[in-house]
């Protein structure tokens, strides 16, 4: 997993609430057996017309946002299906950070497993960040995970919370499975005890 330390990038505004994972990556792209190559299909139905041409109204089709690495999005981002194809598609498009007032649980977890930082801010902060994102490609937002803060293009600083274990893994690009394997003795002991306590399991 790629490390996430400090990201200075263009942020794209997506004020719509309840952007679900079906919107982020529709089902026809879930048939892949790989993790890569989904970026071109991210937000497919909003992004492309029926004839395959780009929908000029969609934010990531605007010249200013084609190189965006941050999304500033409406409430409850990533709701619905557990498909990890959603963060894979975002990552493959180039998105490393999503900022919203809330995220659906499974999507939120999935982001951390793929080097994407989801940041929860207040409604008021989101509005200010949305305005900053609307400035387009002349503006750059700085997301600093080490110091847990976002700096807008005007220099306004917004602090955020993040789980310390997840922060540690993201900053160091650590693989969860490797870390858990170090605790294999605890798992072995638990499994033995469980087999006696609940033999039907």
């Amino acid at each position: 997993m790629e490390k996430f330390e400090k990201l200075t990038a263009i942020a794209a505004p997506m004020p719509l609430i309840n952007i679900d994972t079906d919107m982020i990556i529709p089902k026809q792209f879930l048939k892949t057996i790989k993790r890569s190559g989904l970026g071109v299909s991210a937000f497919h139905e909003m992004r492309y017309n029926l004839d395959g041409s780009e929908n000029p109204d969609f934010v990531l089709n605007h010249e200013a946002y084609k190189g965006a690495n941050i999304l500033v999005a409406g409430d409850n981002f990533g709701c619905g299906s557990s498909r990890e194809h959603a963060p894979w598609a975002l990552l493959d498009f180039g998105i490393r950070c999503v900022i919203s007032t809330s995220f659906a649980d499974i999507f939120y977890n999935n982001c951390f497993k793929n080097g994407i930082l989801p940041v929860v801010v207040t409604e008021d902060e989101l509005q200010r960040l949305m305005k900053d994102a609307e400035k387009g490609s002349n503006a750059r937002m700085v997301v600093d995970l080490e110091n847990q803060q976002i700096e807008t293009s005007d220099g306004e600083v917004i602090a955020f919370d993040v789980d310390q274990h997840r922060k540690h893994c993201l900053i160091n690009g650590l693989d969860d499975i490797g870390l858990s394997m170090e605790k294999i003795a605890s798992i072995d002991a638990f499994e033995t005890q469980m087999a006696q306590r609940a033999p039907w399991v």
Partner: protein
Amino acid sequence: MAPKTLYDKIWDAHVAHEAEDGTCLLYIDRHLVHEVTSPQAFEGLRMNGRTVRAPEKTIAVPDHNVPTTLDRLKGIENEESRIQVEALDTNAREFGLVYYPVDDVRQGIVHIIGPEQGWTLPGMTIVCGDSHTATHGAFGALAHGIGTSEVEHVLATQTLIQKKSKNMKVEITGKLSPGVTAKDITLAVIGETGTAGGTGYVIEYCGEAIRSLSMEGRMTVCNMAIEGGARAGLIAPDQTTFDYCKGRPNAPTGKIWEEALAYWKTLHSDDDAHFDKVLTLKGEDIAPVVTWGTSPEDVLPITAKVPAAQDFSGGKIEAAQRSLDYMGLTAGTALCDIEIDTVFIGSCTNGRIEDLRAAAEILKGRKIKEGMRAMVVPGSGLVRAQAEKEGLADIFKEAGFEWRLAGCSMCLAMNPDQLQPGERCAATSNRNFEGRQGRGGRTHLMSPAMAAAAALTGKLVDVREMI
């Protein structure tokens, strides 16, 4: 000892390791696997030279991609779908998993066959790379959806990295009125909480109306906990649960059954247990409901009218307008004046035998509206066989429904069962998202009886007029 909720009890019984910051390794009793969210996880194991720690607790079945037409054993036409199902065949065999291939009569939707085969039992922790894993909470099992990286983690370690969620209680008091079902309960709750109302919580459903439900109904309720944003839904096990589990192929027997039963009877929230959030609805107040928009929270009684975007506040105004445009609806239209052209009965929400009985009850001796495309997709091969034995299949076929083989089908349209742009469907599934049943397709969620009634009239209709 401090009083505990049901969630607290199951959680405490499964912590294999706890770090100082509260991050736990939660032991997983059952891992369900399907073909869409697992290939990358198995690939990850291979790349790192790892294996499946507990193949005997890992149950795999293809369901999302499989055709449900009667000729499906000829093979899957779509190449990508075929490759994905073949990958599961290979992975299941290579890693020695419990496997129900497409030609096995026990094949079906993963959340239907888990309980059916007795893999799902009270007090267990159950995960699957699928958000509707919440279904299994109906047994008083802690069950939730995970991503593919987590699938790989569970395959390798039989544990999941977790922090504890908060407790929420949803109580449905009293009795349901005739024509009102488990589906109406679960939709009505989401209508109250919104799709983010349960985020960060595990919901325990309780109250007389929940207690009165069959296991099938309870599974419908818990299935959609995720649609309310909750990590999982739970219902404390009782005699209804034990009766369902007893005699299932993988349920314990004899002395071990007795031991299990004694433990299962302790699985309920203590009287003074603390819930961080409580919602109470009266069973009598719940009407048959339908969704009008593109979020499961867009729920209204069938007697209501399509709302206007201005009826909402904040970000929901823009979202509601977008929904109305997408759904091709005008504010003020009576919901029962909305014409439909497709009916889909099935899915992990409503593809069980009781759902088919409820739909057949409405359809018996009647014909669907001319030109209507209507299909029943049983949740498993065994549900299908049971429905044929009971004569339900004949009722569906005589009414004009297609009688399909088991799979996820038009719930998410990964197989050939899809809506065309602008087509409008009365569906018993769980998501009405834009494009969910096919690009440009319009979905109204409802109960099996309501969907059957709509097939007859060609419009959304109040099923209470037909019973």
